[in-house]
């Protein structure tokens, strides 16, 4: 074999290759392994390879020595250049370009020829820049930097390259062939724009320029190559591999698809968004999405209903759980339908997921639907979408204030509110709501946010709160403690939302009303019929025969405050003074009732009695008593039950002077409770005994004036002050009433004592 003369470049190149192949550093390269790969990468027909090997003597030797290797490489170059393979040719062929090896797995190898070839074009001195090692390094850097982001993508990239080369598919292959051509012949491509994120990518242009640089250049493109997804969406046999170039990419199909597939062949796949937002949608993708949208819903401004979307996305064969999550992310306004933007976002997410990207927890900013001006329901088509997507700088972290200026006015408050509250996902906003509606929705969503100042609801709140305050304050004044039911009933009446807002204000009120046991409807304005004036009731009941125990109950003017306790029941029952009948009735009945309120029963009757005394109804009562007596005796047990509810009512209606009946020792303990109860409604307050009518009248007057709380929005402060004033007035009135009632209580107690004395006196006679 004649000696081999190599140029410097060749020398360098060959030595590199040799060292590359010589993994064992034995200065001998076996015929297997890397050498074979290398020769395969040379893309020469097999027989040529064999010939080369034979020529260089490897077959003879069984391995590649350095010289053989060099010869082989030279012969490769010869063969690639089209020259016949001859031993002589290795030296005779001048200006032989360096052998080219298409990289299958070795980018370095592929790079090298490029660089070398490029320099070889220059002829003459290879003074040029052939920094193989640095180049390799560069390449490495580029590839690794890229790879770190897209390990999978780069790997994927490798595979399609070689198989793609197969001339089966012309259109898709074109970019590849291109690249090959670009790589090899055009020296101009020597710029290895690995440095930095190269030019932004436009479909084919960049393919060209960036081809040599390969991976790192594909910046700013969203990772997911929709291509195989499209295939699957189209229900063509889904190929999970990335080599889905086949039918889907045939040019016959929609232009979009071919475009997409062609571009996605390697480029998009490589685009790892080095410095740009990974979730950005490229124009082609967007176009594709829009077309898909049109197939479902021709009107671009319209919605895709959930069911249709479900079918569509189910075709992508993602698990339902993920599709569900995607839906949650993309259905921004939570209306169960997808607008164009939402659809694109969803599609994009599906595509991303199909390519192995994990779904984000929140919708990425660039995927957020371009919320138009809320007042402007005429949504624009793709234009703003394009602008928004391509124009928005993606480096902003997914904050909720995207570069959508039209919404900045409404978004910020939503943002802060949503940040304040603990709600995780974006506050759902309807696409075409009014601002107020948005605010309302926001309020509803952020119900716990007390500080939102912007809602009209809040203003109403203040009014309602005033009313609540008034109501509760009334109750406070009158009852010393607000019945638990009341503040809660207030809360019922007012908008529950505002309760939250009012919590602070109402805390004083609601403080005493922890958790009401049952949602008490506004305390029954009871039976004004009876409650109003017991005198009336008396008349009525008296007119009614005493067949009804309740009548009897009412009618019984308690002559003697009974010992309500069951233990003592017999006692009082025994003594049956005429006047005491009623009382006794009550005592018998009352004990079965709420034990705390036996006094009430009695005193109610007592009051009634007093009232009736006042109202000269005594006669009636006196008449009634004997009648009632037997009735009552017989139907005691029944009456007790029947009378329970009624007497409760009676108690309520009765005077608020709750004489304590039973022991007389603790007069005040039971009373407060009934007092409270009775004070449930203002009406109940009114129907005191007639003695109190004037007070009740006053009270009624005061209370009647209450409802006229101005609800106008604009007069908050004044209204509040006015209501405060009113409250104070009612407070004083009620306090006065309270004191008067207390006075009455004392009087009644005295009377009771006297009655007891009488009873004692009469006792011996009753046995008869």
């Amino acid at each position: 074999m004649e000696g081999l003369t190599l140029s410097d470049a060749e020398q360098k190149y060959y030595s590199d290759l040799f060292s590359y192949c010589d993994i064992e550093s034995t200065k001998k390269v076996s015929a297997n392994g890397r050498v074979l790969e290398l020769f395969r990468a040379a893309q020469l027909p097999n027989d040529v390879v064999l010939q080369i090997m034979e020529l260089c003597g490897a077959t003879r030797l069984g391995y590649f020595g350095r010289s053989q290797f060099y010869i082989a490489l030279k012969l490769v170059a010869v063969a690639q250049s089209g020259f016949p393979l001859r031993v002589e040719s290795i030296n005779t062929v001048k200006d032989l370009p360096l052998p080219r090896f298409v990289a299958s797995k070795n980018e370095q190898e592929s790079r090298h020829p490029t660089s070398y070839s490029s320099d070889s074009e220059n002829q003459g001195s290879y003074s040029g820049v052939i920094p193989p090692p640095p180049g390799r390094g560069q390449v490495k850097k580029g590839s690794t930097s890229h790879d770190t982001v897209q390990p999978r993508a780069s790997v994927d990239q490798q595979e399609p390259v070689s198989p793609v080369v197969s001339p089966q598919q012309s259109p898709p292959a074109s970019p590849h062939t291109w690249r090959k051509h670009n790589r090899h012949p055009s020296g101009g491509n020597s710029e290895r724009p690995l440095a930095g994120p190269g030019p932004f990518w436009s479909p084919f242009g960049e393919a060209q320029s960036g081809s040599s640089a390969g991976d790192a250049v594909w910046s700013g493109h969203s990772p997911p190559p929709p291509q195989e997804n499209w295939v699957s969406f189209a229900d063509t046999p889904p190929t999970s591999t990335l080599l889905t170039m086949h039918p889907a990419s045939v040019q016959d199909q929609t232009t979009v698809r071919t475009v997409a597939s062609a571009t996605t062949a390697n480029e998009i796949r490589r685009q790892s968004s080095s410095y740009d937002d990974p979730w950005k949608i490229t124009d082609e993708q967007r176009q594709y999405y829009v077309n898909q949208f049109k197939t479902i819903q021709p009107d671009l401004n319209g919605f895709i209903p959930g069911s249709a979307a479900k079918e569509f996305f189910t075709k992508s064969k993602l698990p339902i759980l993920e599709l569900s999550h995607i839906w949650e992310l993309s259905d921004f306004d939570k209306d169960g339908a997808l607008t164009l933007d939402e659809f694109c976002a969803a599609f994009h997410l599906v595509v991303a997921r199909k390519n192995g990207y994990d779904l984000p927890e929140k919708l990425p900013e660039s995927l957020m639907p371009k919320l138009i001006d809320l007042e402007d329901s005429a949504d624009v088509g793709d234009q703003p979408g394009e602008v928004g997507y391509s124009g928005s700088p993606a480096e902003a972290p997914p904050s909720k204030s995207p570069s959508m200026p039209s919404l900045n006015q409404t978004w910020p408050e939503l943002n802060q509110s949503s940040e304040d509250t603990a709600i995780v996902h974006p506050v759902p906003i309807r696409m075409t709501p009014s601002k107020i509606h948005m605010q309302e929705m926001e309020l509803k969503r952020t119900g716990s946010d007390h500080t939102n100042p912007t809602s009209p609801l809040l203003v109403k709140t203040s009014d309602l709160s005033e009313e609540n305050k008034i109501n509760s304050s009334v109750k406070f004044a009158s009852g010393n403690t607000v019945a638990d039911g009341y503040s809660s009933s207030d809360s019922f009446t007012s908008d529950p939302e505002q309760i939250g807002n009012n919590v602070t204000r109402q805390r004083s009120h609601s403080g005493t009303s922890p958790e009401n046991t049952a949602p008490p409807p506004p305390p029954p304005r009871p039976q004004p019929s009876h409650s109003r004036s017991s005198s009336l009731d008396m008349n009525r009941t008296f007119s009614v025969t005493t067949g009804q125990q309740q009548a009897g109950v009412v009618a019984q003017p308690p002559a003697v405050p009974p010992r309500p306790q069951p233990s003592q029941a017999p006692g009082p029952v025994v003594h049956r003074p005429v006047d005491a009948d009623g009382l006794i009735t009550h005592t018998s009945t009352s004990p079965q009732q709420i034990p705390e309120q036996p006094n009430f029963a009695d005193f109610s009757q007592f009051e009634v009695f007093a009232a009736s005394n006042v109202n000269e109804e005594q006669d009636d009562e006196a008449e009634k008593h004997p009648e009632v007596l037997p009735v009552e005796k017989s139907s005691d047990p029944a009456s007790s039950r029947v009378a329970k509810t009624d007497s409760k009512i009676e108690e309520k209606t009765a005077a608020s002077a709750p004489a304590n009946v039973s022991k007389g020792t603790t007069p005040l303990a039971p009373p407060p409770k009934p007092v409270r109860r009775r004070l449930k409604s203002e009406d109940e307050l009114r129907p005191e005994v007639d003695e109190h009518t004037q007070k009740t009248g006053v009270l009624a007057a005061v209370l009647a004036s209450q409802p006229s709380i101005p609800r106008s929005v604009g007069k908050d402060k004044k209204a509040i002050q006015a209501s405060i004033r009113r409250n104070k007035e009612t407070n004083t009135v009620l306090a006065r009433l309270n004191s008067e009632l207390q006075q009455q209580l004392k009087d009644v107690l005295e009377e009771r004592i006297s009655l007891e004395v009488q009873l004692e006196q009469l006792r011996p006679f009753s046995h008869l």
Partner: protein
Amino acid sequence: DALSTIILFLQNYPLYIRSIPTENELKFHYMVHTSLDVVDEKISAMGKALVDQRELYLGLLYPTEDYKVYGYVTNSKVKFVMVVDSSNTALRDNEIRSMFRKLHNSYTDVMCNPFYNPGDRIQSRAFDGMVTSMMIQVC
């Protein structure tokens, strides 16, 4: 250490269960199941369909010595039951109401998802997040 549990039921089958803390869950589950009876009782007591927001909130179903159980039912008879620790006196009725309202809203969102079949267990991450935040807020 405040405890709370939230369970959603559809026709007495649990759709979603969440407890904090996670031990002793079984006891809470039992309590919730028994409280379902109370819920049903309240529903039937309501008689005709009163479509009123107020009616959805059932209030304190029953208090035990340690815990309080609250109920809420939607118009589609999906029941929400919440158990909270009695020591958590800071919880007002209004807050419970608002919590139920939030639950209802989130549940509606889950329903809007066409991929969700009614009757499935709720696996929505957004829903989980909302419930977690709510429960943490309580505890």
